[in-house]
């Protein structure tokens, strides 16, 4: 099975110059965890995810200090949350994005998701425009269907 058979074709995306607050609202409204970021020519230039927000509001040294228990929200986190409105998506987004073409097999998609620890992959056509997006859930559903579990 090819990825074009299971991908979502109506891709919810966000322009690079949108505010982070706008992107956050979209993530919460659509109940998704990531958005492809497009430039003015509709080219994919990054991915904006919930993880990027968490990475911004928490200190960069967090992974170095191991266990660090916060009983209550420190002022710094509240302050950083308040700053989100003044930030543009392009300031927080991840620029290195793994993409695939429409003819990639399902197994290859699953393999990449597993080894690269990613939840969703934008699918590009030959002119490098986003034509779809595939999430882990889509892959699992397709495998389950093939095994007659659904």
């Amino acid at each position, binding site marked *: 099975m090819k990825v074009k058979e299971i991908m979502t074709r109506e891709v919810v995306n966000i322009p690079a110059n949108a505010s982070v607050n706008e992107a956050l609202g979209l993530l919460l409204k659509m109940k998704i965890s990531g958005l492809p970021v497009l430039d003015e020519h509709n080219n994919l230039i990054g991915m904006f995810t919930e993880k990027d927000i968490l990475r911004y509001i928490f*200190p*960069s*040294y967090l992974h*170095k*200090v*191991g*266990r*660090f*228990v*916060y*009983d*209550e929200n*420190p*002022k*710094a986190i509240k*302050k950083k949350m308040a700053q989100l409105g003044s930030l543009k998506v392009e300031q927080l987004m991840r620029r290195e994005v793994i993409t695939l073409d429409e003819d990639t097999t399902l197994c290859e998609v699953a393999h990449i998701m597993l080894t690269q620890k990613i939840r969703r992959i934008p699918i590009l056509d030959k002119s490098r425009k986003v034509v779809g997006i595939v999430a882990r859930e889509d892959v699992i559903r397709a495998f389950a269907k093939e095994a007659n579990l659904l």
Partner: protein
Amino acid sequence: MKNTIVQKFIILIGLSLALGIWCSQTGFTSRQALSISIFSASIFGTLFFWDFRLSFAFLGSSLLLITKTIDLEHLIKFSSLDIILFLVGMMIIIGLLKESGFFAWIVSLILRVRNLTATKFVIAVSLISALLACAVDEVTSIIFMVAAILEICDYFEVNPTPFIITSVLATNIGSSGTVLGNPIGILIAAKSGLTFEDFIVKAFPLMLICLLLAIFIAVLWYRKSIREMDEKIKEVGSNEMLIKLISVPPDRPLKLSLAIFGVTLLFISLHHRLELLWGLEANTILLIVPLISSACIMIWKWNKARSYVEKDVEWWTLLFFLLLFAQAGTLKYSGATDVLAQRLSGAVANDPSLLTGMVLWISAFGSSILDNVVLVAAFIPVVQSFKDLGFALQPLWWALLFGGCFGGNITLVGSTANIVALGILEKERSIKVTFLQWFGIGLSVGIATTLVIWLALLYLPLLK
């Protein structure tokens, strides 16, 4: 950018070649001159291209072998695998402590200071920074101290810079107090025969005196910031809320980790007596205790053992150390350090006091520019050669230790702790500390504390 890199590379090659040619024309044999030239290229490489230091170490070691300046057997012998294994063991133990919340627990102790004032805060931060650096390595300790200072300064809405700089100064001073505080401590202990007890009896009290002096200077230097913080503390109220902010309950894994660390420290501190009791070679217990403890940790946490070894051990740094020690050993092997020792002793008219002062100040100012491990590794074979010239080595070892640790305070690139702390400050609060902003207090503390050590080395019979 590209031009600067090319320029630096040309300067590096030019300086190394010039040094080699100058040595060969001033009484060194061609092999000695070659070893000095290649070693200096590695040192200049670390100075100009810090991110590529491992590449320079690889290339330098290969050149030493290919030019037959040293053979493979001796290169491996001089690489001081014993010290590398000690550091591997300690890094695994620290990995466990980090994971179990030991450092966060220690940091939460600062927050429990009742009726907090800014001066109390500076003193608590300095003492904990120094003691933590004594017990674990300075880089691990500074990350936790910076994290705590940022949280506290955020709470009281004051600029964290003066408190972070004070903590770094205290960390560098504290790292001289035991064998564990700084890689140069274990390096000197392994090469000199000085024991953990020697460090506790001789280095630790001197470190404390210097720490008090540094706190005094910092309180004076930052009196305005301290006054501002006092006002904020009055405004915001007591630190009851702050105490609740970060807290680590001492749960079972933390208690067990503490027990392992405590037993490790106990055996390390008794290593000399145990080695005498069991008729073991010097430093055997010192070097194997971290290995035994980390072995126990990897059995206890067997499903995370690979992660401790792969993520908590800094293989990049350790490989650099290993090859650096091997290259420094080549200076000894070729006899270059014997010639250097003769010339240095001639320069001070064979006066032991002048020689001690020279080693202390060279290592202090050298460490303010160079990584102190690089400097001390280069100096060790020279100090060893002074023995054949009839000098007592002990004051020279202490001079090397204190100079190497305290010199790191002079400039903002003087030690890894400085770079790590200021890097976090810039990333988290967009505060960039300038060279001069650091240099004022750094030079004052660096000179004052090194002076104290100089006087102690001259007049304290304990250190002779």
